[in-house]
């Protein structure tokens, strides 16, 4: 058993940083991302004996997402719900006479908190693809393995999600500036 846990840690611990990126955005209301990471590793360890996959970090991401869903179900809450007013309150202000181009507005006013709040507004499939690829640095193939869907689907979702994220940031920023 001691050898097993050492082999497990050798194989998985180098990925703790990317698992943390996933956990931060998969953790539901009131759920601590660090607790989610720990629970992910404990579940992974329990299944390590039967694990035959080739991509360990994709496997860890899948476990992390499943663990977050289980916890959200247990709490009977939607895990990524963010009040609309909180979103508006936190968005950057853009003046009405600034450029209307969505990309220009977004890039000029990038703010991590606003990005997080807008990301939370995306449909779950798009959000998860963006978290895996753009936040945690997974490849499209790894994200597809973690989510259990074709790679092409991941690419389509991440593209739609990025556009929607940019539009949310830009529209909310402009409307907030007009009020």
């Amino acid at each position, binding site marked *: 058993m001691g050898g097993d846990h050492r082999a497990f840690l050798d194989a998985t611990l180098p990925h703790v940083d990317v698992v943390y*990126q996933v956990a931060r955005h998969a953790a539901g209301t009131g759920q601590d991302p660090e*607790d989610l*990471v720990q629970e992910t590793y404990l579940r992974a360890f329990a299944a390590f004996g039967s694990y035959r996959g080739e991509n360990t970090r994709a496997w860890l991401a899948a476990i992390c997402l499943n663990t977050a869903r289980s916890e959200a179900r247990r709490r009977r809450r939607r895990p990524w719900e963010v009040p609309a007013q909180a979103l508006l309150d936190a968005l950057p202000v853009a003046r009405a006479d600034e450029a209307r181009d969505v990309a220009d507005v977004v890039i000029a006013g*990038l703010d991590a908190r606003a990005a997080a709040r*807008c990301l939370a507004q995306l449909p779950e499939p798009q959000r998860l693809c963006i978290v895996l690829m753009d936040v945690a640095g997974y490849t499209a193939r790894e994200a597809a393995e973690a989510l259990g869907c074709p790679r*092409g689907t991941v690419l389509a979702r991440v593209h739609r999600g990025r556009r929607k994220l940019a539009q949310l940031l830009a529209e909310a920023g402009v409307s907030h500036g007009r009020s």
Partner: protein
Amino acid sequence: MDGHDRLLAAFLAGDLDQTAAREWDEHLLECEACWQAAREDRAGRQAAGLLRQPAPDGLADRVAFAVELATAGATIPRQPRRGVRLRRSRLAAAGTLALGLAVTLVVLLVPGGRASMPAPVAAVARYAETMPLPAHRAGPGTGGQAPRVEVGNPVMMTVGGQHIVVRTWRLGGTEAVVATSRQPFPMPPGAQGTSGGGMAWVARAGKLSLYCINGRTSELVAAPVPAAELAVLAARLPLA
């Protein structure tokens, strides 16, 4: 998403061959809608990139420790909140008690294995074993008059149904673990009671010396020091 959008997504992902990619480059120069879509894709990717945040220091250690404990059938449920703090010391009382124990420790401490040690005590000992051995030996009172510094964050664990908060302190070149619980720490085989009523005991676990005071709040001190030094060390720790 139609076929056109799928091709654009593939182009942006670098999936298209050289010829197809060149055609899309030319198309983007002429098609305002696709150009806008490509720019939004880039802006969205940049915004998401802002959300990267390094994992907290110590998370890997915490995970590794949880896995090691899992092999022994124990769990660490969560990190305690920042506001959770052990009660600060009543050093005078602890010092008096610890000094009183000093002679007893030398006489009563007996070497003991951990094979039959109660799970909560074994878990604390296991945690303490990860600490470095003292950097230098200054004789009794390891750490001399060096200030007491807390190392890392408190860790909360549940072992055999017993909730335990573990904090680590550095005194000079020596580190010591103080585990606190509302339940008493069971006395391991080979340990010796040090006061009437079986409320306190001392024991050895490998290179560690263990000293426990059971009461309304039970405390277990573990440090890689000789038994004779543990009492002096305990006097400098924030025991209740």
